[in-house]
C-alpha cells in the first residue's frame, strides 16, 4: 500500500497542528495495525529536517492500557510525540508523565488511513479553535450541566470546583500541550459522585462502534447502575465486567464536539469531535482534573443534544446556541 494519500494529512498534523521545528526530537509511537500512518508522519518530519524515531508495539487490548516501559521512557524524552495507536494512550500514566515533562503530544487513537484523507483531519483548524474556545468559555465555572435528547437522554452532571480543560483544538504548540488528532472538543471531568439520570447512546461507543440499537445507560450518584439495549449493550456490559474493577463504572468526562468536518465513522476519535454531538465517558480522568484512576476510559456519543450549563443554553438540538 502506498502512503501517498496520507501525506497531506500527515503534513497538516506535523506542521500546522504540532508546529514541529527542524531541531526538535520527535517520537512516533505506533502499533502493528497503524504503521503506514506512522511512516507518513515520519516522512514529513524527516522532510522538514527533523529526526524522527518510529516505535512500534503490539496493539494494546483496551483504551488507557499502558504502553511498554521502553516506549513510556522514550515518550518522556522528546519534544514532540505522535501516538498513532489502535487503542488510546491519552489516559495513561505514560502520557501524563510525558505531558508533565513538557512534551507536546498528539494522541491519534483509532486513526485510519481514511481519516487522514477526508473528514476531521482536513478541517479548518482555525475555525475549530474558535468554536472550541467559545464552548470552553461557556462551560467554565459552572456548577452543573444537563443534557437532553429526543432519543431519551435526561442526564445531570455536577461540575462544582472542576476546571474546564484547554480545548482540544488541534493546535498543540506550547510545551505540555496535548490532545487528539483529529481534534475538536471542549471537555471537563465531572464530579465522580454527581451523575444522575439516563444517557441514551445513539451515536457510537468506544471500542464497540455504532450500536445496533441505542444503548441506555442509567447513572446514579456518579455510577452506571444499569445498561440496556441490544448487542452493543451486551458487549459493553461484558467489556466492563471483564475488567472486574468498580472504577470503570464511574463517570469520567463530559465533552462536546467542535469540528464541523468530522463525520460518524464508528471510531471515537472522530465521532466525538462532530459539531452537534456530546459525549459522556466512564473511567480514567486523572489526566484532566478528575480523581478516578481506572484501567480504561470509554466514551459514549449522543447526537443532537440540548445542553444547559447552569442557566445558559449552550446547544439546542445539536445547534450551537452561544
Amino acid at each position, binding site marked *: 500500500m502506498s502512503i501517498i494519500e496520507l501525506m497531506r494529512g500527515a503534513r497538516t498534523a506535523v506542521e500546522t497542528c504540532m508546529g514541529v521545528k527542524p531541531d526538535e*526530537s520527535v*517520537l512516533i509511537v505506533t502499533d502493528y495495525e497503524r504503521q503506514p500512518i506512522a511512516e507518513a508522519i515520519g516522512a514529513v518530519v*524527516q522532510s522538514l529536517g527533523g*529526526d*524522527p*524515531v*518510529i*516505535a*512500534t*508495539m*503490539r496493539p494494546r487490548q483496551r483504551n488507557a492500557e499502558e504502553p*511498554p*516501559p*521502553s*516506549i*513510556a*521512557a*522514550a*515518550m*518522556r*524524552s*522528546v519534544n514532540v510525540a505522535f501516538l498513532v495507536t489502535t487503542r488510546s494512550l491519552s489516559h495513561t500514566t505514560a502520557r501524563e508523565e510525558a505531558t508533565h515533562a513538557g512534551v507536546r503530544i498528539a494522541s491519534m487513537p483509532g486513526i485510519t488511513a481514511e481519516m487522514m484523507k477526508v473528514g476531521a483531519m482536513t478541517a479548518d483548524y482555525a475555525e475549530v479553535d474558535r468554536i472550541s474556545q467559545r464552548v470552553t468559555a461557556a462551560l467554565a465555572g459552572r456548577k452543573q450541566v444537563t443534557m437532553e435528547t429526543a432519543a431519551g437522554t435526561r442526564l445531570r452532571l455536577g461540575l462544582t470546583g472542576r476546571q474546564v480543560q484547554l480545548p482540544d483544538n488541534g493546535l498543540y504548540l506550547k510545551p505540555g500541550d496535548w490532545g487528539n488528532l483529529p481534534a475538536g472538543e471542549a471537555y471537563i471531568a465531572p464530579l465522580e459522585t454527581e451523575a444522575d439520570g439516563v444517557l441514551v447512546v445513539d451515536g457510537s461507543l468506544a471500542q464497540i462502534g455504532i450500536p445496533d440499537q441505542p444503548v441506555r445507560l442509567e447513572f446514579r450518584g456518579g455510577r452506571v447502575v444499569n445498561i440496556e439495549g441490544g448487542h452493543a449493550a451486551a458487549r459493553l456490559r461484558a467489556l466492563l465486567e471483564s475488567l472486574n474493577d468498580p472504577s470503570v463504572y464511574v463517570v469520567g468526562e463530559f465533552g462536546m464536539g467542535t469540528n464541523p468536518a468530522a463525520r460518524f465513522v464508528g471510531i471515537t476519535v472522530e465521532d466525538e469531535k462532530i459539531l452537534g454531538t456530546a459525549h459522556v465517558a466512564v473511567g480514567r480522568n486523572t489526566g484532566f482534573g478528575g480523581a478516578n484512576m481506572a484501567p480504561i476510559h470509554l466514551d459514549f456519543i449522543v447526537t443532537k443534544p440540548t445542553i444547559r450549563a447552569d442557566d445558559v443554553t449552550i446547544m439546542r438540538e445539536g445547534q450551537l446556541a452561544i
Partner: protein
Amino acid sequence: MRSMELARAVHKALQLCAKLKPGENVLVLADSIVDRGLVDAFANAAYALGGETQTMIFETRPEINREPPKAVAAAMGASDLVIDLITQYIIHTDAYLKVRKGGTRILCGTGITEDMVIRLVGAVDYDELLRRGHRLVELFNQAKVCRVETGDGAVLTMTVAGRPQLLRDGLLDGPGDLDYMPGAQLSLAPVEETINGTLEVDGSAYPPVGLVGAPIRVTYEKGRVVKVEGGPAGSLWRDWLGKFEDPKMFCVAHVSIGMNPVGRLTGNILEDERVAGCWVIGHGSQMEYFEGTVGKASSHSDVVAVRPTISLDGKVIVERGQFRI
C-alpha cells in the same frame, strides 16, 4: 526470501543466544537502512517467545558511533533485552555504556543480513562451538608464546602470557552483558613489544578494502606495522591507516581466532573475522578489557588470514586454517 529458515534461525538467536524469557521487555532496534523484513522477523519471534516486544527505527547516521536519538537511548535503558541491528553501530557511545551499566542485555548484530542469520546462527552447533571456545581459552591461559605461520613461510611471534582472553561466544549470560551475532571469536592483546615478524593476509582487510584479492604481507616490529607489501589492496590499506596521522593506527590492538564453523570469506568483515580457524589482527583503537597499552585511537581496522598455522609453545592448534584441538 527464505522466511521459514529465517524464522527458525531468529528463534534460535533469541532463545539460545539472547536467553529471552517470557515477560521480558524486548526492543528490536534498527536504523533505516536495515531490511524491515529482518526487523520484523526478530520482533515476531520475540513475541512468539512471550516477550513484550517493540521495534524502533531511526534515520541511518553518516558515521558509526554517533549518539542515538534520546528516545532510543531512553527506550534501551527501559528494556530487559535489546536486539541491536543498527548498521552504523553505536557500540562505543555514552548511551550504550549507560544502558549496559543499567543492566540491559544487548545482542548486537550490526551489519547482519538475513542470509547471515540463517547460515551463521541457524546452522551452527553452539555446543560444539562452546566446547572449542573453552578449550582455546584454557590453552591460551597456559601458553607463553604464540607463533603464526602464513603463506609461504611468513612467521609472526608474540608473547601471550599475562594477558586476558576474551571469549565472545555469542551468548548473553546476565544483566548488562553484550555479545555479538553471529559468533564467535577468541581475542586477546599480546604483549605489544613482543609482536614481531610477518603476516600474509590472504582474506580481507577492512576498512577500507574488503577481500584483498592478491595477498598482502604485513611486517610488524614491537607491535607496530613497519612494512606493507602486495598490490593495490596493500597500498590502499596502508594509506588508509596513514590518513588519520595517528601513530596508534599502526599498532596491534588485538589478535583473534575465528570460531564459526560455517563462516566463509565474503568480504563482510563481520563474517570474515569469524571464519573458523582464521587469524585476525586488529589495528588502532583497543578496548579497555584487553588490558593492553595502546588504548583509544582514531579508528580501527582488521586484517584476516584464513589459512594460518597457529601454535602455542610449539603445539599446533590450527593447521592451515583447520582446528587441531
